[in-house]
């Protein structure tokens, strides 16, 4: 889920930037520091959309760095357990499949696929195939859009990893997408 959040961050700037471009330097540092990063509470900070306020710099006595409190508005993505998401399959093998959900990776174990999906090792690319569907078979293969529900999330410093399931009604490949 995406959110617009007002966040703040303290930027420490070395003295070399003290000068006419100070504000730019602060903002550049802000972008560097927060965009694409994970915040334990808010999830992925995808983009800083708006700078609300750049506080006045305060010199740190010991280091000479200036601290700026920056309040900014950011687009964040946070996933929640039980959230239903659309993902793009990246890897398929006997264990299940991996999929990308924007910046995060999701794994759907074979056991969490509906039982009528059978792994077809001979297929190229490897795929899970729903054979029961007469006429047009449903396949889960690399590049497919799949709707899945998140059942577990692990947040690291640099990535979010989710485990999902498609073993429920209305989940699974989304052919039209």
């Amino acid at each position, binding site marked *: 889920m995406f959110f617009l959040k007002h966040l703040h961050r303290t930027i420490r700037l070395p003295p070399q930037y003290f000068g006419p471009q100070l504000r730019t330097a602060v903002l550049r540092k802000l972008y560097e520091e927060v965009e694409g990063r994970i915040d334990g509470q808010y999830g992925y900070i995808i983009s800083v959309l708006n700078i609300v306020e750049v506080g006045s710099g305060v010199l740190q006595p010991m280091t000479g760095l200036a601290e700026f409190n920056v309040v900014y508005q950011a687009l964040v993505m946070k996933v929640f357990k039980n959230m239903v998401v659309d993902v793009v399959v990246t890897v398929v093998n006997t264990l299940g499949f991996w999929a990308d959900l924007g910046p995060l990776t999701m*794994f759907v174990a074979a*056991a*969490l696929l509906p039982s009528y999906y059978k792994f077809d*090792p001979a297929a190229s690319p490897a795929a899970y195939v729903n054979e029961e569907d007469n006429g047009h078979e449903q396949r889960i293969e690399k590049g497919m859009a799949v709707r899945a529900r998140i059942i*577990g999330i692990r947040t690291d410093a640099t990535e979010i990893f989710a*485990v999902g399931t498609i073993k429920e009604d209305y989940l699974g490949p989304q052919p039209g997408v």
Partner: protein
Amino acid sequence: MSDNGEHDVFPDDDDDQVRAPAVASSLSHESATAATASSADRRNGNEDNDDQDNEENEDDGYAEIARDLQRSNGEDGNDNDNEGGGAADDGDEEDNEEPPPRGGRGRNDDDEDEDEEDDDEEEEEDYEEDDDMPRAKKRRRKVNRFIEAEAMVDDDEEEEEDEEEGFVEDREEDFEELQKAADTRAHRELDSRRADADEMDAEKIAETMKARYGRSEFNRGQYRGDVEHIPQSMLMPSVSDPKLWICSCREGKEREAVFAIMSRVFDREGTPNALDIYSIFHRESLKGYIYIEARQQGVVQNALDGLNNIYLSKLRLVPVNEMVDCLTIKAKDTNLDKIHWFRAKKGKYVGDLGQVVQITENGETMLCRFVPRLEPAGTPKVPFGGKRKKTERPPAKLFNPMDYKNEVKKEGEYYVYNGDYFDREGYLEKTLKLSSLDVTNIHPTLEEISQFSGGSTDKPDLSHVEGVGSAVASDFQIGENVEIISGAMAGISGSVASIHNDLVAIKPHFAKDLPPTVTITARELRKQFKQGDHVQVVKGNYKGETGLIVIIKDNIVTLVSDGTSKPVEVLSTSLRTTADVGVVAPRTSPYDVGDLVFLQNDVAVVTKIEGEYFGILSQFGSHSKVKAREISNKRDSKNAIANDAHGNPISAGSAVDVLDPDRHDVRKSGTVAHIFRQVAFVKAKDTPEHGGFIVAKTQNCVATGIKRPMNSFQSTFGSAPRGGGFGGPPRSGGFGGGRGRGNFHPIIGRTVTIAVGAFKGYVGIVKEVNDGLARVELHTASRVVTVDVNKCLLPGQTLAPSASNNSGFGGSSFGYGDRYGQTPMHGAKTPMHGGRTPMHAGGRTPFGAGGRTPGADGGRTPAWDVGGRTPASAWDAGSKTPGHWDASSKTPHWDAGGKTPAWDSGSRTPYVPLDTVSSVYPDPATAITSTIVPSGGNYADSIAAPLAASTITQEWPAIRVMVTLISDPNQEAIITAVQPATRTVTLSLLPANETRAGVSFDDIKAVSPDAAHDKVMVIIGEGAGQTGQVISAEDDDGVVRMDVTKEIRIFTMNMIAKYVPA
């Protein structure tokens, strides 16, 4: 009744041998019994009633109330049975109030009790210990009763005796009278008490009850968990039951003594001296002791007095809480909970997981189950006394009697093979000494366990997993979510509130009708996780790994490891919820997954590392576990090259599809991790087993992306197996691991003639080869000289090959000269004798000029012959059967090549064959025809008769091969006879079976098989003349099962022809 007896007895020890003869505790216990009896009398005697039933009901009622109250007090009320039963026993019940603190275990836990009673008891205890005659005790009790006018304890005992006693009729008569006297009083008491009870309000009742029963209730509370699921608890002996004495006797005479006592009892039955003995027995496991059950020691002494072989001085009372042990017959698997699994410490099964089936009574040996490791059927037996060759132990595999048909006997439920017993499921059953087994810290993996459940991990038999899966208290942490898996409360989940020894208090999540906490043994609990929980493995092979739970199936949890993204199956007991991302401890092992390792007699790839064990997949496809020290070294196989099914070179890193020899439609794609000789270890992406490694013969591999690791020369010219031996430096041979051979060089030990230099013409033995230099020990001068290895000539060899190699390809193309040159040279000898000049002339010159003149090639490397036969592209076809390569020196090709005179003509018309060939390919018939082309169209003319004879073997037409006529492609026919001399065949034309003789070889064309199950004959290449059946035919390739060898081989269509069996 309940209390100590059963608590001790049951879950803890069954080692009666140790416990039974425990004297010290028995004494104190005895005195406790007596002592408390008196104090109990004081309190409760008024409950006695002449109407026993009535009284019992009454008491039950009280007990009921008391129990309810207890329950609301936070105790759990599970031992109603005991309570009820206890109350019914009235006086005896009271007796029991005290023993627990004395019984050893309960004592420590119960300070308040002790404070109160200590003084009293101590006094009495001392007193008691002085007189050990029970008789005296009893008397004193009676006196007490008189004085206090209270409990009819003994009376009650008598009552019981009445029912139980079989043969003892007489009693102490004064009891009757006493009872009567007490009866009226008891009536009155009871009445008044009832009145009181009616008046009292509930709270007061509660108080009273608490005061009366609370303490004993409290004592018991600690053991409630056990009590709850042992319904026999009521049957346990209490102090009110007859006591058990143990007496030493002469070893081996136990039985005799028992019978002697028995006859004495019968003798005296009905006499005034009758023996009041309930039972006598001895235990097989406890030599030198007999047990006597009686009420009084005096009786026992009487019974034993004067008997032979009895040491009366060693008569002791068995504490009431140990009585059960004395009579407990060890259940089959009494101990199995603790050592359900083990690993063998030595022998063939060292390191293997085994399962305990049964423990013999003496506890030293166990009947065990293993997954057998048998030599495959047909392995020659080592003759007795013969030196046993130490070989790699066979893979663990369930026994299948069908594999050893003639050598298996059936004995009841078992199969007997080679003196070993195998049960129906194929497990080996063996009786082993406990000392040869490792029973602690087993940590069996799920794979191992699944082997014991029929080999499928999908549905592990939980009965097998049980012993491993059951939790102990230390697995749990306060706050963890758990689920009760057995007992009356199964299915309830809650969080751990406290842990005490083996008991875990649980706060149920949905506490309707449940006390706030439930105490239960750890083994009845299972950790509860939810899909998606982030957990860490806290023990076992995967210790330290963290991951997200994907699947939960009973107590087996599959999680996706954070580190490797691989699924890991573990038991839920070894998991713990965590927020951290675990880092698997760095491995100190010198070997890593995917390493090519050399074992004593095997080559394998490491598929898994489990502590000190390595899972390896050997070149024969067997999977086993070894310790690090069993691995002699590891190699890389960067330079090893082998040929795939199509003759393309593959080496480590090549992408290949592996064909399953049994199921041609199954292909697994992967990357070659290692090549060892003709075996490729392929890391397949989608194979979960064995760490993703597959072993395959290289001829069952098909390179999917052509990787050209070598220089252009090799990839073009040397793409054939030849690449190894011929063109490349010797190390990069098709001979995998050639590098590792170090000093090994085929020329070592050979007698050679030095061809150039100061020692030209000298003969010597090659001692050592280093960097292309051979150290040759001269026969004559007895000294060692160093010469270029290419300048060493084997007998019969001339300098030509080496020289031409050098000139042609530059660099040290030693491989040719030393490896393959050797054999063909032998072969080449024959023609050489006859035609030495041509060899030099034909061979050398073109070589020198072009370096790759096929003629020269043909002359020298008989492979030419192969090329000539399957002219498609000489190199490709030649390498089609990479098998040859392996056997380089033995392969018939070389020989054939050596013998074939073709080279002669081939060298004359060096380019013709290729041209011809490429134009006619892939038409097999013409291709075949072109076999002859090297010698020009006029082969027959140019070749002398004797040579022709040798050519015949290479002519493809064979009897019963189906052909079509080139002149009339629709006319099918079967060859019925071949006249090689005239190069004609006799055909039986289909469908009319009309015979036509004298059809030229050039006019027939073999019919390629077009469908599966067609019978085919190999017409060219290795194995020509063999027949087989097509398993599948795809495009240009046919997969054929050979009739004779049952081998599965892949041929191009032009190598095989439809065959019509007679």
